[in-house]
């Protein structure tokens, strides 16, 4: 038996009413600021991009990866997570730092800082290589341990 979220629906409605009032006030300020369409595209777009693009994309990759590696095990040590973990970490870094890695804001960055944003793609590739190498090393240790 799962408890009801809040015993009294009145309390539930009251909490929602306060939340909608504050959020509505903030949204009204954005409307007054005059860029409501662009804001709405970003606000809803961020959720849509995550829920209907990013999530299916990484889930599908993960599922395909798990499927093809189902029998990928040496000495009973499954290889799945030793590839999954560095791949997801590297993917997350790309997701967060893609403007610098892909050089999308080079000009703005130069105007702000007075120098060009060099080396981000190289650094991301290097970090990715280190993550996979470290994971491979851990895997090798576990395989050797399982053998002995």
């Amino acid at each position, binding site marked *: 038996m*799962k*408890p*009801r*979220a*809040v*015993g009294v*629906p009145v309390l*539930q*409605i009251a*909490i*929602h009413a306060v*939340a*909608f009032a*504050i*959020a509505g*006030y*903030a*949204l009204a*300020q*954005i409307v*007054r*600021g005059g*860029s409501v369409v662009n*804001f709405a595209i*970003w*606000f*809803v777009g*961020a*959720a849509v*991009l*995550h*829920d209907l693009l990013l*999530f299916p994309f990484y889930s599908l990759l993960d599922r395909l990866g798990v499927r093809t590696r189902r029998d990928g095990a040496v000495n009973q040590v499954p290889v*799945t*997570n030793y590839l*999954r*973990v560095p791949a*997801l*970490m590297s993917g*997350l*870094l790309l997701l*967060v*730092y893609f*403007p*610098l*890695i892909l050089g*999308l*804001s080079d000009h*703005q960055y130069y*105007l*702000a*800082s*007075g*120098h060009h944003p060099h080396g*981000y793609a190289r*650094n*991301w590739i*290097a*970090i990715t290589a280190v*993550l996979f190498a470290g994971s491979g090393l851990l895997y090798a240790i576990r395989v050797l341990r399982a053998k002995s």
Partner: protein
Amino acid sequence: METPHRLAKPPPGPFRPEFWRSPLRGPWLTSFLGTLLLPLIVIVAVTGLISDGAYDPGLGLNSPFDRYGAFDVAIHLPASSPAWLYAVTQGLHVTVGLVAIPFLLAKLWSVIPRLFAWPPARDLTHLIERASLLLLVGGSLFEFATGVLNIQVFYPWHFNFVREHYYGAWVFIAALTAHVLLKLPTVVHAYRERGFLRPLRDDLHHTAPEPADSRGGLVAAAPAPPTISRRGLLGLVGGAAGVLLVVNLGESVGGPLRRIALLAPRGHALGSGANDFEVNKSALASGVIARARDPRWTLTVRGGRTVRLDRAALLRLPQHTHELPISCVEGWSTSQRWTGVRLADLADLVAAPAHASMHAASFQRGGAFRQATFTAAQVRDPRSLLALRVNGADLSLDHGYPARLILPAVPGVHCTKWIGSLTFLRE
């Protein structure tokens, strides 16, 4: 409750419960991820409000956007704060924000089957809850996305970032507070039933689905065999947070950490000269190069009377040296030794009253931060300088030559560069 017949059978795909296969999803996992995420969000929200307060939006033209309502709940740092305080709070805002991202993504992953709940709304209460969840999910992703892009100087939008990030935060905070209050019983129940940490003891072979929750809809109806344990998943999330911490922290903390801040937007080592440290807006971009080099430059100081001082006259006034950070709202900071004239001495020079606030204007023609207004307490702080030199050398053009402001615990952009005039205001 009667469900209309045509909605009884969900359409194929993610709307069917058997579509969701992960054996890890369930109320305990979501509760645990939420418990880890919440304190991070609180830190980011509080430091965000501190940053808003540090701009003193009520003074002069300091607010970067029009505030129509009386909705100013900015948190103000106390006067005579340690010089590094804003560097710490803003460093936390950006760094903890980055570190929270893997927790946020994992939290969203753990509840995504609910997005495809069928029927889309069971009743009015459910519809209201789903609307508030749109504000919660949209608000969180909007805040994180705009913040992450802003620190990389990437602006693929047409709105005022500061205003939208500020009011977007209120949408997020309101929806999150309601969410926490409404889900608290579910969280308590999950911990009572499963234990707070007990599910973390299970290795992969002992990882089993949580008991079915008929109304929650998180536990898979037809779970696949596990490929990772719950502690493995949390290790992945925590490890990813650790990687983000390591590659970014150096731009806020400096020292040897700067060398491993491999992806920090401002993590570069810039050389060893007196002026080799980060700049927020270059002299080139600000269009000030010709006027900054003009030897006829004078500073106008207005108060009880008006005086004009050239650089030589300023250098003849008593010089003071303080180590103070430039702390950017983007999260990076850099501490340097600044030498120049105390603002308090300049106030006395023009017979300004002790309670006078000060308006500083750059001779820069455009740009949002070519001016700033400061409280009397900030002006009279002995560490507040009109800096002429840094680390024993003249300021470079990029760092504000011929003269710039440097004050303790203020946002970097308020340390106005290429100063043209200082005006002490009676009120």
